[in-house]
């Protein structure tokens, strides 16, 4: 009975429903995009009505929001934060800088494509994306979760070698322990 397909589908449906309606968000706000988040979360745009809520630490968070560019120095912290988060976890790349480098496309010190270092589920385009687009991004992520397609964490586990290789290319002093799962 417990391995019955319908029962599993119902359980998955409930899980996905709660996951999409309760996103604890950790905003990694070192880029300029962080300034859009107070507007998104407070009274004018109120992302809390969608169940999006700030989390204080990576352990509690489901959703990592990378707001803008990442220098190689902050990339270390982002990888560490991402690996501290508990499954299921999602990443939103926020702003042009996470897609192709944006205005930092020829900088010597920033990474250009975030997807090469950690798996990104949803991108929000723009420089800066306004709160409307941020909320549209949350909606898109919720759609992906309810369809079961937001599987960045499994992608990361399966292709860990590829991600590690890319990470080590830009991080000369490797700061993290090696995992063997």
């Amino acid at each position, binding site marked *: 009975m417990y391995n019955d397909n319908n029962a599993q589908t119902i359980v998955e449906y409930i899980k996905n429903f709660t996951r999409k309606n*309760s996103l604890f968000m950790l905003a990694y706000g070192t880029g300029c995009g962080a300034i859009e988040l107070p507007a998104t979360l*407070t*009274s004018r745009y109120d992302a*809390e*009505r969608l169940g999006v809520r700030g989390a204080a630490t990576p*352990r*509690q968070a489901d959703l990592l929001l990378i707001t803008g560019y990442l220098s190689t120095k902050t990339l270390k912290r982002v990888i560490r934060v991402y690996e501290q988060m*508990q499954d299921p976890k999602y990443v939103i790349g926020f702003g042009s800088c996470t897609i192709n480098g944006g205005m930092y496309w020829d900088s010597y010190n920033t990474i250009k494509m975030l997807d090469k270092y950690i798996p990104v589920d949803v991108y929000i385009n723009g420089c800066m994306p306004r709160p409307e687009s941020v909320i549209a991004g949350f909606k898109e992520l919720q759609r992906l979760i309810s369809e079961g397609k937001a599987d960045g964490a499994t992608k990361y586990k399966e292709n860990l070698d590829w991600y590690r290789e890319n990470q080590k290319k830009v991080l000369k002093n490797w700061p993290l322990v090696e995992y063997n799962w």
Partner: protein
Amino acid sequence: MNTILFQLFGALATILLAFTVGMFYGGIRRKIIARIQNRVGPPIYQNFLDVIKLYSKETSIHHGAMQHMGPVFAITASITSLMFVPVLNGEGWFWFKNLNFSGDLIFLVYMMVFGSLGMALGAGQTGNPNSAIGVTRGLSQMVGYEIPFVMSMVALMAQFHTTSITGLMNIQVQENTWLMFSNPFAFIAAVLAMLGMFHYSPFDIVHAPAEVASGPVSEFGGKYLGLMMSSGSIFAFVKLTLFVNIFMGGAANLIELVIKTFALYLIPVLYGVTSPRYRTEQAITYFWKWPLFFGVIAILWASF
């Protein structure tokens, strides 16, 4: 044999009732805060979604044995306190008579501290500096609010010559009055202490997310956070029901209970939503001024 089974079912039903009511109160609180801040706010069942999601998350963190036992201690303390608080007047509800004995009020005053201590042990094991700061803040604040709370309880015990919660409830039923009118200063001191007990703003120095990254729970994710949220909801119900039982004459049925507890719950919620966070020493000195004064007056009132 049957009576024991009925008691167990009754205890389970009590836990479920406390959990549901506490969770809905949390959701209503979030809605109230949102409306006061001119937002739409999450739906009132949002806390249920949060808890189900947290329980369905993977939890693969290991810092040591105490880290796994801390949340369990917290929820154990909440449920144990719940077992000693009568839900309704008279014969109990749903076959469940609470485990009262003569002296359970003293026991409860101790038991209500146990959850915070368990959480402090668990948070201490994680080694996160934010947890350590949060724990010290929490224990300092506990020193603050426990004193007026215990003084108010002692005043009641001395005034009515009973140390049992059911005894106090029976007195209210017999004399057809509420103890908040018989000893108003004890009620004021206890309510002011309750503000600190709830850890809501302005006394949310323990969980301050912007200062100490949610304090003791900063290393707890997934199921442990879910356990702590459940424990907090049950404990909120315990506190409110205890205050209703002691000061507001208890409740004859569940609707009366919900109305009375919610009215009482609005005090910390509305006081919190309009006040910014205190610093640690401000919070402690707050409790050691007026609430302590009212506690002393309550004891004098009881003895003369």
